[in-house]
């Protein structure tokens, strides 16, 4: 589904962040990406999400080269993805319901279907009773779950998560990871970056190790 071919990313100020990354993620596969901080995990996810353009190399989505897409194609490409960030990135001027509904509204879902889909997503992350709350009034774990609900509400084919448990205690972290596992079981391809090796080893999924911008086995 996703194939990276010799991807390099270099910033003028900080040098080479990613070097010769070859990586393939099959349909329905779930994969963890780990490595020390500064090893390039976030940059790799940003390249896959087309937030950052690679300096060299090619990125294929369903065997279609998406490396040099223009802005409008990028936005329609993003509709196939769900993104989860360490800092949740919720809109604090809207309630939980509206935050989760955002991808549906933007991606042109039928307004009549929106409440049903939003509630289904909130139900999966166990926040059905919080739909009217403001994100600021929620705990860190709850905010992260709202972020996850927003990432999966439009049934993306690919889920990318960057340190989704970075600010959470071990018990909550395990819960969040189990959520991703659940989504993977219903067919969503997932790539989850986490530095917490002890957390991810227990799930029996492929683990990619990134060190100094290179994939190591």
């Amino acid at each position, binding site marked *: 589904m996703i194939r990276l071919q010799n991807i390099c990313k270099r910033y003028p100020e900080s040098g080479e962040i990613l070097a010769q990354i070859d990586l393939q993620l099959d349909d329905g596969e779930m994969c963890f990406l780990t490595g020390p901080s500064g090893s390039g995990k976030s940059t790799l996810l940003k390249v896959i*999400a*087309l*937030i*950052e*353009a690679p300096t060299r190399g090619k990125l294929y989505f369903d065997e279609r080269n998406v490396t040099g897409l223009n*802005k*409008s194609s*990028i*936005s*329609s490409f*993003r*509709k196939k*993805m769900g*993104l989860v960030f360490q800092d949740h*990135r*919720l*809109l604090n*001027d809207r309630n939980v319901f509206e935050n989760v509904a*955002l*991808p549906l*509204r*933007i*991606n*042109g879902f*039928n*307004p009549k279907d929106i409440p049903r889909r939003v509630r289904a997503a909130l139900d999966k992350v166990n926040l059905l009773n919080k739909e009217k709350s403001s994100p600021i009034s929620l705990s860190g774990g709850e905010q992260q779950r709202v972020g996850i609900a*927003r990432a999966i509400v439009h049934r993306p084919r690919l889920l990318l998560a960057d340190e989704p448990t970075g600010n959470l205690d071990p018990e909550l972290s395990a819960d969040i990871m189990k959520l991703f596992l659940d989504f993977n079981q219903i067919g969503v391809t997932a790539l989850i970056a986490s530095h917490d090796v002890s957390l991810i080893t227990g799930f029996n999924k492929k683990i990619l190790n990134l060190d100094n911008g290179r994939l190591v086995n």
Partner: protein
Amino acid sequence: MKNKTTQGTLNTQAILWFEHHIDSFKLSLNRAINGPVAFIFTALMIAIALSIPISLYVVFSSVQQLTNQWDSDKQITLFLADQVNYKQAQQLAESIASKKEIANAVAINKQAALDEFKQQMGLDSITENLPQNPLPHLIIANPEATLSDFESLQALESELRDMKQVQQVQFDLLWFQRLQAMLAVINRIQWIVSIVLLLAIALIIANVIRWEVTSRHAEIEIIKLVGASDAYVRRPFLYSGFWLGISGSVLALIIVSLCSWLIQQSTTTLSSLFGSDFQLTSLSIDLASLIIISASLLGVGAAWVAVTHKLKLYR
């Protein structure tokens, strides 16, 4: 069947597009209401900048109205040749009056002219001593009020001068010419000031929108990350520009109306003392709507430029 589905999707897309416009409309209005101080300050700034060209227009068109009144007073005096008698003068006046450039023309008997001259000047004793009436018969003609350009007035004057019964023509064209030239200068100033201030308004709006985009950086980033197109991100900002334009222009119209009302109070006394019915032109509904529509479009345009420029930073 497939066609039907495509048609259905198209309809849904159109409805969604329309709904997002309504959402953006409400959202931008909400933002304005939630940050009233900033919004009101900007709208007032636009209003003041816009009220200057509008008041210039009001003053200029009032002055023009006044000079039109003077124009209609413009009078051509024809001094006839000595050998022309009063009866011939009357016939000539009639034929002049029938010209399409002339509104009316009357012959004045030289005796009546002398009497009037005596009365006005109080020169009884001097005129008493004259062996005969030195004045010829006169014709006083008024050109049509619609005849207002210098060239046709000049043509009319020389046409009258060329008549063999006419000895001399008195017509203050130079004064008229000066007035027209002065009005042309004022008109030009009005245009330049208007263009400069419209540019200033566009810059004010663009700057405010730029600032708004910057302050919503995080939000725009998130919306882009869940797949929003540039047009989707741009829409609420375009409406913000629209709100600034429309409220600025409405405020400007209120300011100008208030000022002309205040000024009108004093001009009424002044013009009544001068025996003139001078009045400040009031803004017509047509012009007011034109101002509001143009200012709103200016707001949208300025916002478009500002947002599009800023959106280049986002992928």
